[in-house]
């Protein structure tokens, strides 16, 4: 067993991926930052100076204090406080945790659905294609917001609204995942339509491979480039959609704000002087998205054997 795992590690070390990684500063910095985000959100309860979910520790009289380096700032609150008097630093740490979970999982769900549907539609074609693509049309007509309303209704009907708080995160992932799969499906389908006419697919057919194998092992890797682009963009979108859903009462509970919710709820303060309420989480979000995008770009290039990196 240990021999096996060792050889796996060795294999990884010899792989192209690892090699390119060690040669690319941007990739290393991004991975580092990304790890910081991940660790920061996993260990938020340990790192954060306050627990922003503990309502009794929040005092409204502390609200809208600027960051500590500013004139009216207080030592206690390094990055200032928001309109409710929550410590920004702690809130951001917890919020990143929520946003990152939702963003990554929702996009994973979208991608999963979209890829399976898009591949099948493009590869099988004919009636299946028409049906799936029209399903996508129906889905697209119901924006995230409408899906949210439907899901909420179904959930309420089946479990009652009390349970909602506990499952908020899962529901959000579900809603965003369901609402946006057509983006993937249609893109993949287009690539598949072009790829499936290529000779390597015919070669695979001659080998006798099953359709599933041809779809996922042969065609899919050749359609990855737009998927990477969409995914990295969608993560940002998912994070922001979640904030928009809070407005419908479908987001995270208002007392457990996500990064997106922080930005949207704070934006009215930009011009009234309390810029930090929205700007600091905004910077965090931009950095997060930037890191994810750069990693995505890098991964895409590495996975394409034709593009050499030196």
């Amino acid at each position: 067993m240990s021999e096996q795992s060792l050889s796996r590690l060795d294999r990884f070390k010899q792989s192209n991926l690892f090699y390119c990684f060690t040669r690319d500063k941007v990739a290393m910095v991004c991975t580092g930052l990304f790890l910081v985000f991940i660790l920061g959100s996993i260990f938020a309860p340990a790192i954060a100076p306050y627990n922003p979910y503990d309502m009794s520790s929040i005092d409204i009289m502390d609200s809208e204090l600027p960051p500590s380096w500013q004139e009216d700032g207080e030592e206690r609150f390094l990055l200032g406080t928001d309109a409710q008097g929550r410590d920004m630093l702690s809130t951001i740490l917890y919020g990143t945790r929520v946003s990152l979970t939702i963003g990554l999982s929702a996009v994973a769900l979208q991608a999963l659905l979209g890829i399976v549907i898009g591949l099948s539609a493009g590869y099988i074609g004919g009636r299946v294609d028409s049906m799936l693509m029209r399903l996508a049309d129906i889905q697209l007509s119901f924006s995230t917001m409408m899906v949210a309303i439907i899901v909420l209704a179904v959930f309420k009907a089946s479990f009652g609204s009390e349970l909602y708080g506990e499952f908020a995160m899962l529901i959000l992932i579900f809603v965003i995942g369901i609402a946006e799969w057509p983006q993937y499906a249609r893109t993949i389908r287009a690539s598949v339509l072009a790829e499936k006419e290529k000779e390597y697919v015919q070669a695979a057919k001659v080998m006798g491979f099953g359709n599933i194998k041809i779809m996922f092992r042969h065609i899919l890797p050749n359609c990855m480039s737009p998927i990477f682009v969409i995914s990295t963009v969608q993560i940002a979108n998912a994070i922001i959609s979640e904030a928009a859903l809070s407005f419908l009462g479908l987001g995270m509970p208002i007392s457990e704000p996500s990064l997106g919710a922080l930005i949207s709820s704070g934006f009215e303060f930009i011009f009234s002087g309390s810029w930090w309420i929205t700007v600091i989480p905004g910077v965090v979000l931009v950095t997060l998205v930037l890191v994810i995008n750069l990693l995505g770009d890098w991964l895409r290039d590495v996975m394409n054997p034709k593009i050499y990196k030196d």
Partner: protein
Amino acid sequence: MVRFLFKRLFQAVVVMFFISLISFSIQDNLGDPLRELVGQSVSEQEREVMRDEMGLNDPFLTQYSRFVVKALHGDLGTSYFFREPALQVILEKVPATLELVFGAVIIILLVSIPAGVYSAINPRSLLTKFIMGFSVIGISVPVFLMAILLIYAFSIHLGWLPSYGRGDLVPVFGSWETGFLTKDGLLHLILPCISLASIMLPLFIRLIRAEMVESLHTEYVRFAWAKGLNKYRVWFLHALKNTMLPVVTVGGVQIGTMVAYTILTESVFQWPGTGFMFLEAVNRVDTPLIVAYLIIVGLIFVVTNTLVDLIYGLIDPTVDIIGGKK
């Protein structure tokens, strides 16, 4: 070809049927339309009476079949708020939205193609890094915020551009009033179009870049170089055309999504289009209007996707959309 279009037409009808069914079944969860129609002190009994009059208490199937029968006669119901046929309300608002989307699409085309191509060709240049960095910021700033920032910068601070509305309009063919033909109208278009475009622009820049990088490595691009072609011809014709397939697809989906995003842009800029109307309709629980809007949007999706599929066929001759014989 004709058969293909007929098939799509039929599918469109099916799509719209399902959309209406779904939206009809959720309307109870959107809220109580009566609340938005009456003053605060109107009593519950009174509201109940009105609900009866409006047929809102009928069983779901009765309501739905009534709707379908009317819809088959071209009547998608009457908006509670506008007190006009929903279809008419939407048609009145469509020009505004279309012009907004059109403007945004133009901006996207004008910016994303050169930017994407440039950054694919010069992957290491400073400008490329700037473009890519900028696009990330574009993705992660919510539209709403972007719009407000633009207003504050360009209409309050600099006072260059108007902050809301469509400005002067001139009528062109019939009831279509356009802002594209007056200076004031154009000025009013700038900010909303930019903020709408800002959502999609990064995606397109990145997509074009990614696809372009791939196609620059193909043999036929090498062969095109060997033929001694002008570099612009190689880049913009040979390489770019091959990147267009995914771009057109994503474009097709995104034009639809853009219709959804008009909701936000229009409400910030008080743009009298369908998006804003829809948001208001949801706020006012104007269910007939919501259902009609969704049906129309569904139709738009079917139409754009049909177009996109036709365009595939034009771009890539190996793709066989009609299902003919190979």
